[in-house]
């Protein structure tokens, strides 16, 4: 298959764009694979790609019940950052950040990772201290972080209400310059195409309905397109983890599914040049390359698999964005949508072997799965290939709850909706 480049674009333009080939094949499932990855979202596709690229395991199928990228990879607000507090999280997300920085080249697909910076606004002295603590943790972990004064913030982000008379005046801001946004769909498609080129079978419209077992051992899956056997079965179905695990007989699991809404305004000329988050509530906003302001806030705060939210959560988000950028009140909301989040009990993911022999688990991403995609795929592939975790995912076990080693970035404890 041809490399994508400016030259290939030109050549194809001259032939009327008639010679482009499908970005990936549409194979029928084979009866047997070395590894089956359930879930054709970002994490599943990345896992398949790294299995092939890093471990030479190419006899791999990715099973997707809908279309590739139909889960949260296509419904998020596209923020990429590694501005975490706890060392376990910092190591993991910074590893991801480094993969992001070369991802377009690695995949030969422009995922449009734009390092325009993520700025977290603090609105009280206490919050400023907490953010500085996090920023310093980043610096000690080798991650870029800067503290901006309200004056520096006013210069960097025009339109922000930086006045002292704001309801929650800005006390300062934590900036991660290397953070930014990427084009979410392109990440799914880039991994899909790159995995396909290495021989991975990407099978759409193929829902897993059950697991094949030999005693406790998982030996494959039954699907809407027939039984498929595999030595190893890996789950990357964040949002539906509990549902799929129930088909393997695991009835209770430390995850709740919640709906999170996201919003986009009508497209306007460049308005804001970095990602900004509002600390006196919960809001994150950036502007897409097309010009729409992309933003989101808190969960709707109830269990849901419906991919649709309700008005109160939407109204909260709108009131916060107007408090942050009073000019935005005049702009118009174009579209809203909902995604189903795997909310874990400490706000951190689970990437591990088990809980059954032959089964591997990647779940619990809460709001934060998009930025994790490369590291998640990388470390999950490592875990599947070697039957032991990579250093970056070693702390993200299921047994951490048993040991009391929760990785709780927000300090909210086992109340999933608060993470």
């Amino acid at each position, binding site marked *: 298959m041809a490399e994508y480049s400016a030259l290939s674009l030109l050549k194809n333009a001259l032939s009327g764009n008639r010679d482009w080939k499908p970005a990936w094949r549409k194979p029928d499932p084979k009866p047997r694979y070395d590894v089956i990855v359930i879930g054709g979202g970002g994490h599943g596709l990345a896992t398949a790609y790294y299995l092939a690229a890093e471990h030479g395991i190419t006899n791999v199928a990715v099973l997707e019940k809908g279309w590739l990228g139909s889960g949260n990879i296509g419904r998020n607000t596209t923020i990429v950052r590694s501005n975490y507090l706890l060392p376990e999280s910092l190591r993991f997300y910074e590893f991801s950040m480094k993969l992001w920085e070369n991802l377009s080249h690695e995949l030969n697909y422009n995922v449009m990772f734009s390092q325009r910076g993520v700025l977290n606004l603090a609105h009280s002295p206490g919050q400023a201290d907490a953010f500085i603590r996090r920023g310093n943790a980043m610096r000690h972990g080798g991650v870029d972080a800067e503290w901006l004064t309200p004056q520096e913030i006013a210069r960097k982000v025009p339109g922000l209400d930086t006045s002292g008379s704001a309801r929650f005046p800005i006390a300062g801001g934590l900036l991660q310059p290397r953070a930014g946004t990427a084009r979410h769909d392109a990440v799914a498609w880039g991994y899909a195409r790159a995995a396909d080129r290495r021989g991975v079978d990407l099978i759409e419209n193929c829902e897993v309905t059950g697991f094949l077992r030999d005693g406790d051992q998982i030996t494959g899956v039954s699907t809407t397109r027939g039984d498929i056997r595999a030595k190893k079965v890996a789950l990357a179905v964040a949002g539906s983890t509990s549902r799929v695990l129930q088909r393997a007989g695991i009835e209770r699991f430390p995850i709740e599914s919640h709906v999170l809404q996201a919003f986009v305004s009508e497209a306007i000329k460049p308005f804001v040049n970095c990602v900004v988050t509002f600390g006196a509530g919960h809001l994150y906003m950036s502007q897409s390359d097309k010009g729409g302001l992309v933003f989101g806030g808190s969960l709707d705060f109830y269990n849901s698999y419906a991919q649709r939210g309700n008005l109160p959560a939407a109204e909260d988000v709108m009131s916060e964005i107007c408090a942050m950028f009073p000019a935005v009140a005049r702009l118009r909301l174009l579209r809203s949508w909902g995604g189903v989040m795997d909310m874990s009990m400490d706000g951190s993911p689970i990437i591990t072997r088990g809980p059954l022999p032959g089964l591997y688990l990647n779940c619990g991403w809460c709001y934060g799965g998009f930025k994790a995609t490369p590291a998640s795929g990388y470390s999950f592939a490592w875990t599947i290939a070697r039957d032991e975790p990579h250093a970056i995912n070693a702390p993200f076990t299921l047994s951490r709850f048993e040991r009391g080693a929760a990785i709780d970035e927000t300090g909210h404890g*086992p109340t999933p909706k608060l993470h």
Partner: protein
Amino acid sequence: MSPRRTRTGGLIDRARTIRFTFDGESYTGHAGDTLASALLANGVSLAGRSFKYHRPRGVFSAGIDEPNVLVTLLREGVREPNIPATQIEIYDGLRAESQNRFPSLAWDLGAVNQLGGRLIGAGFYYKTFMGPVIGPLKGTRFWMMCEHFIRCAAGLGRADYEADPSRYERVNAFCDVLVVGGGIAGLMAAEAAAKAGKRVILAEQEPQTGGFARWSDETLDGKPAHQWVAELTERLTRFDTVRLLPRTAVWGYYDGNTLAALERVHDHVARTPKGHARQRHWTIRARDVVLATGALERPIVFPGNDRPGVMLAGATRRYATEFGVLPGNRTIFFTNNDSAYEAAVAIKRAGGHIAAIVDVRPRIGDAATALATEAGVVPLTGRAVAGTKGSRALSGALVQAFDAETGRLSGEARPLECDSLAVSGGWQPVLHLASQAGAKPVWDEDKQAFLPPEPAQRWTGAGAFLGKFSSADALASGRDAGLKCAGKRPSRARLPEIAPEALNPAPAPVLEIRGRGKAFVDFQHDVTADDVRLAHREGFVSVEHLKRYTTLGMATDQGKTSNVPGLAIMAAARGITIPEAGTTRFRPPYSPVAIGALAAERYGDLKPERFTPMHDWHVEHGAEMTPAGLWHRPLVYASAGETVEQAYIREAAAVRRSVGIVDVSTLGKIAVKGPDAATFLDRVYTNTFSTLKVGKARYGLMLREDGIAFDDGTTWRLGETDFLMTTTTANAGAVMQHLEYCLDVLWPDLRVHLTSVTDQWAGAAIAGPQARAVLERCVTGTKVDNETLPFMGIVHGQIDGALVMICRLSFSGERAYEVYCGAGHGQHVWEALMEAGEPFDITPYGMEALGALRIEKGHVTGAEIDGRTTARDLYLDWMLSKKKPFIGSGLMDRPALIDRNRLRLVGIVSLDGQKLGGGAHLVERGSSDEPGESIGHVTAYCYSPALQKYIGLALVRGGKARHGTRVLLSDPLRRRFGQVEVVSHHFFDPDGERMHG
């Protein structure tokens, strides 16, 4: 006289002339015009530029579906971008600007993009701009450089940074029946429901009800249809139980039949009256909903179909009939269905000239033929428009023989002169709300349209929404829908008389003419038919992939005109049917909504503010206030020229030297009462409260179920079954909810009642060696000596006539008392305390001094109880009762929670005489370049007036084991590095002699 305005006719008020400007040029129109109709009347055909190729565009529709002419309104001193000209009612002084062009609409540099045509087709950006793998532009740099230019070229209108000066309102409404759409069907439904005694709200997005009847030229009960609907509307206004909401778009269908609507209250007048809302956000909870949202016309996709002058056929009809505006001097109609013939007749009647009717169908019915005759033309059947001529305005169309079966053009293309081309590809019911309500539309092969699904919530469809496009159907289905919502069966009573529908409602299944040149599917995002086929070629064949890869349907019109043609082209490419190709799920909002309107009253007033009863006093006495959650609290009371640091040091020193007073009203306060109150407290606190004597207080600690520290505070036993619990300010709400959960869910058998009394009590803490002396000077009704009021004792008395409750407890380590009184007496008691303290130079102190005093004592607060620390981490193990279980005791001993190497509480002392900093980290070794591995962090710091040093509290790996060692403070964010000594967190008076004395 405007060049395209008819001499007579239309529903505009020709007596009223209205002046407005577009791109700085002055124009006139009439009352009743939209900006689009007024521009057309003035012969302005070029009115916009497209998103990607910057192609010249003109008005394409007459309603909410307008993809081309979006303008920026300049109003109330701010810019409002991307408003469809078809949705703007003109008023005197209206100022609008075209968008996405530089330097002008006529001469737009961005049009150079058209040269790149094939190079910049769908998804081109995924394949390039990746840049070099080495050198200065490696990584993401090259892309970001390209992206800069892409971003400047993209976007539509320009917003400014000025705050929106408007007010927005929010209204909650309840009704039996919400009728969405005020056309014939909606009006009939509303009347039927209202007659049956139902409370009805009818929302119509246009300024007037009537919909299609306003421009259909039909006769109802012998009256012009527009007059008939006006009379019916008038009748509806006479019902007390009916509320009509014009200019109100219902845009969201949420759970439990909750619908969201936006009323554009004052956008149609020059100025919103002072204090009034520009727009109103309605949340309507309806028992039943009637969806009478009508249908939108679809275009046919053919080469050159975007030239200014090409317009939907139904739109030309509306402009001619409702606004008295002709679309051009010579109009060609191009259609796959009969409805365009009615439009042609309407143009003819309004005085226009029909150059031709081109119909893809080989044969047409008698009714259509008769209409063609009336329009003065012989229809060119079996033919199609295969191209257009002109640049910034249409000058002609190329007509060619066409086989609707095979979709092929043949023979010579014949040029026909025209300056207006009216296109109809049939009609698609507006199903957005039904789709939002949670069900999938169903394809109807005969009507070539998606029809409503089975309802997933309580709604009933009516009129064109059901795919019934005649007015006769609208009358009947509207009335039935209204009756159904009223729980009644369909009526057989006489309906208003109307000529029967003779036209064939089924269009030919032709939505694209394939020829040479760009044929647009999504006008606003410049997605062409070839882009759809490219997506197919590259495997992006599912509807969602198509949409995401090409951006089809994602512009501000959300695919209202492009959705079905795009699907048809993809289905054809895949060799499958349209329903097999699928349909996307519609998401709110149906039409764009001002973000400020959704924020409504909270725009400019985000969250409630909480003030303590003494707030005014603090402000009058020079306090600098700081936010603490929703509260405002004094930070310091700085005197002239004093810095914050100087002020808090002075305040804290005064407490240690003599006496100070601080407002503690913000502490959470919960009355815990009932026979089982003590048992209850034993279960929620780690320590025991059942042994507490009446008239005494005790410090308590709560854990979460997972064994992590949750909150602390004192609880006072006021009576055998009567406790007053205090919580931290930050956790007041969370603790209350936690306790309520415990009682309702865990232990419903306990006889305990909880009341939040935070706002009922004002509190002042008096601290310092002279604190008792101050109280002695003002408290009556009780003694306050050490015997009557020992440490942790409680007394009741009065201060200057106000009842007070005094508890002797200390956060500062000094002899101290918390004085509580009814909130209404707060300032009075505070002033009395100030007066009593005068001889001792009593000093009011704020949060900073409060913090300094507690740091000196090593008391923990939210910075240390941060949701990750255990009681042991904070050396509060002594509070964990071994005699009874409590919340958190089940899991608090898990191995990782009792690891000695956890981050644990210590004190630190600055060894270089410089400030520490909250959030600074501690390392064993490191430098500013290589910060080294963090072993902990500073949670709080201050200058200690008692120790005359900068000190702090920190959570450090290993905790106590490090006492007496030196570590480095590392604060790379603020570039502060220095040496500190690790010490006990009890800096000052560790044995508590001062507070017990």
